[in-house]
């Protein structure tokens, strides 16, 4: 197993952890962090798989570099929206429109 494959496997693990976080966590800040974890996992898979033979591939690296910057912008946007939600509702959670039956 080459180093690139280990990176890619770690990326797949991070992606699954982030996905579970997005699905399971209530607090929006934690959800945004989990979403970032998913993104980092995808970047690791891209770069890791591309250099599985040991030769670094500049094309996925440039793609990931672009992706990182866009992810930073998306995170800032998500944080701005979360803070707007906090000023409007006083809470960092998304509420269902009707109360859930299994609550409590």
């Amino acid at each position, binding site marked *: 197993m080459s180093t690139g494959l280990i990176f890619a496997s770690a990326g797949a693990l991070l992606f699954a952890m982030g996905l579970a976080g997005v699905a399971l966590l209530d607090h929006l800040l934690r959800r945004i962090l989990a979403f970032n974890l998913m993104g980092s996992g995808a970047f690791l898979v891209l770069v890791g798989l591309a250099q599985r033979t040991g030769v670094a591939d500049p094309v996925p690296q440039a793609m990931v570099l*672009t992706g990182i910057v866009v992810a930073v*912008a998306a995170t800032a946007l998500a944080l701005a929206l979360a803070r707007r939600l906090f000023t409007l509702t006083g809470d960092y959670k998304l509420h269902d429109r009707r109360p859930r039956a*299994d609550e409590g």
Partner: protein
Amino acid sequence: MKRNYLAQALGLLAALFAAILIAVMLELAALPPPAVNLPDAVGVRMEATGVAHPVTAVLLNFRGYDTLLEIGVLLLALLVVLAVAPHGEKAPPNPSSRADPVLQTLARIAVPLMVLAAVYLLWAGAYQSGGAFQAGAVLGAAAVLLHLAGLLPRWDTPGARLRIGLAAGFLAFIAVATALLGQGALLQYPPAQAGSLILLIEAGLTLSLGLILAGLFLFLS
């Protein structure tokens, strides 16, 4: 209680998903190498790009279109942040009241060095790891450090100069792309001028990226 079981089941499901993902990837890696060898394809055409580092060549020459859209996305994100940011809802806290003298002294020493490092990274991008995005990130971090040390107040509404600075990278990029349209293709640099055109675009990108990344923090703080 019910929720607890549900969370555990979903957690197990996520672990299973990770295992399947890794198994599929290992299967994928065992396939014969693809017919298109991208590193070689980049290497063959490196002389015509005007830079010596393959990642920079891909970012600003082969896939310059992506980078143009990327700075556009960043600008768009900043515009939305400006639209939802609280304007003058509360008076910004007096920066000097919570200032830590050690942090302030450190920031005063570090920020000029960070600006120097940003210029170096911009220049180094032509032949080794570095480039506009790394340089812009260092500039943005310098502004955030100044703000956290209480030396730079939060930004409220951008003035004319700040607006020009925020848009400069995108505008410079579009100007170069428009000027080169006469060649027949978007962002196809003539090999003789490619190096200086890329440096011009990267300088604009560095300035704008630093300001945008700083703005994403300072407009919200």
